[in-house]
């Protein structure tokens, strides 16, 4: 497989007993990009990333992560990957600096511990025992622990769930700084705005299937959900909306009709669907 790709997944399946959590998905992640897996709870995001991280064995399909099969759990791969799990604990009776120094010592070329604390917003908390940290601070420590080994590829499973808006912005900045360093990031989220703000490419996943995939700005067009929305107000102020694949024709009809009757189309607009429209439409329970 090509070395341009950090991750390649083909026909990946995972069943838990009778439950098919992941049903033959394909995607790839280029080196240096931020790839978002966006989907509602239970969609199969965690299952997918934990297979890529080597925590779970797949039921079928092919998976390559930095040239390795993660199921083999090679040490080389673990030295090059940083992981933020959806939820996990940490040693209680140590300080932030001690635990980071411990983890740094597990890697061949760790980053500077102070620098990582600064980057993840833990500055000032160096000497706090981990058990005194708040939920948000613990999540930053998760980030810091994932970055301290200076990995090429970072997995973030719902990294900002439970954050207040300011903390989310901070985490987003951290993720962007990783991209600036040329790192590859795989991010799962059920927050649409997060995927939109961070990801170069997004795959929307639901019930174990990828429904669409592409750049957030392109996702509306191109795929099955292609349409334009035309809206305007009548003379009586009522809002009208029509969806069409051919806005040119619709606009021509509307405007010539209005002109013929000597009316004005108030607030006339033509919009393309946003990622939000696509997401809501795709993930709405049919």
């Amino acid at each position, binding site marked *: 497989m090509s070395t341009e790709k950090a991750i390649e997944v083909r026909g990946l399946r995972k069943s838990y007993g009778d439950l098919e959590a992941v049903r033959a998905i394909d995607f790839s992640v280029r080196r240096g990009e931020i790839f978002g897996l966006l989907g509602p709870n239970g969609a199969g995001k965690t299952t997918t990333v934990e297979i890529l991280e080597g*925590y779970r064995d797949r039921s079928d399909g092919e998976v390559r992560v930095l040239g390795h099969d993660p199921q083999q759990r090679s040490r*080389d791969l673990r030295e090059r*990957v940083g992981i933020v799990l959806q939820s*996990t*604990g940490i040693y209680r009776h140590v300080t932030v600096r*001690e635990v980071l120094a411990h983890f740094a010592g597990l*890697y061949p070329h760790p980053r500077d511990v102070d620098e990582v604390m600064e980057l993840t917003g833990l500055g000032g908390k160096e000497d706090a025992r981990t058990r005194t940290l708040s939920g948000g601070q613990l999540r930053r420590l998760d980030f810091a622990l994932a970055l301290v080994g200076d990995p090429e590829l970072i997995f973030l499973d719902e990294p900002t769930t439970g954050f207040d808006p300011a903390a989310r912005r901070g985490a987003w900045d951290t993720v962007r700084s990783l991209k600036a360093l040329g790192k590859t990031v795989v991010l799962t989220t059920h927050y649409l705005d997060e995927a939109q703000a961070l990801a170069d490419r997004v795959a929307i996943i639901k019930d174990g299937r990828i429904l669409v995939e592409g750049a957030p700005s392109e996702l509306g067009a191109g795929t099955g959900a292609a349409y334009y929305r035309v809206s305007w107000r009548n003379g009586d102020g009522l809002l009208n909306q029509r969806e069409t694949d051919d806005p040119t024709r619709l606009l021509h009809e509307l405007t010539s009709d209005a002109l013929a009757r000597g009316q004005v189309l108030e607030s006339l607009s033509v919009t393309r669907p946003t990622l939000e429209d696509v997401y809501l439409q795709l993930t709405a329970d049919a």
Partner: protein
Amino acid sequence: MPESRSLGSPSFASLAWRQYRLERKMFWRNPSSAFFNFALPLLFLALFGAIFSSNQKNLDVIVPGIAGMSVLSTTFSALAYNMTFMREQGILKRMRGTPMPSGAYLLGIAGNAITNTALQIVLITCAGKVFFGVDWPKDVGELLVFVVLGVLCFASLGVALSHVIPNYESASAYVNAIFLPVIIISGVFYDANHAPRFLNGIAQALPLVHLIDGLSGAMVKGTGLSDHLSGLGVIVAWTVMGMFLAVRGFSWEQRRS
């Protein structure tokens, strides 16, 4: 598992040592664990020493008995609690995502437990000598053999037990359901040979009574290793089973309930 190291990766030994040092640091910082580990056996020793203080023969039973109990509590109980806690907290899972080899990690954790065993044995031996006039161990080599075997046996059984403990809240119920009956029937507090036949039969099938016998031989009676071959056999058999179950049932993650 493949452990191909890239250039500059820390060695297995240095990683195990690093984990060991962290575990020691955390042990001393957790006041309750440090207290129970050292105060409890000494308290037992003081109480029974006071009760039997007029009777050297009983004291000679109590000191190796408490030493045996210490091996059990520092390895079996401590590891069953510790592994259950770390699994539930997700600490095991987090470590699994790092380059730390599993073997080095477990070695660091077991080394921590074994250090406590060693400290307690030394403490009990000294207290026995200083306060109760029990002689210094007759056969230090034999003492080492039994302590090492006892540690391997009960450490592996403790890890194995942690696999069946569903969560940390229930851990003390599981551990004590085994620990208490076993120390009572195995002659920690009296000579096991005076117990009812039926209980003695059960005790003889378990490893602790043989460990205490061996410790008693080494510390008090001066009987050589050759007098304890069948007891050693029982301990080794439990060790093999414990290791098998500890490795086979090992899970890095909390099972979903």
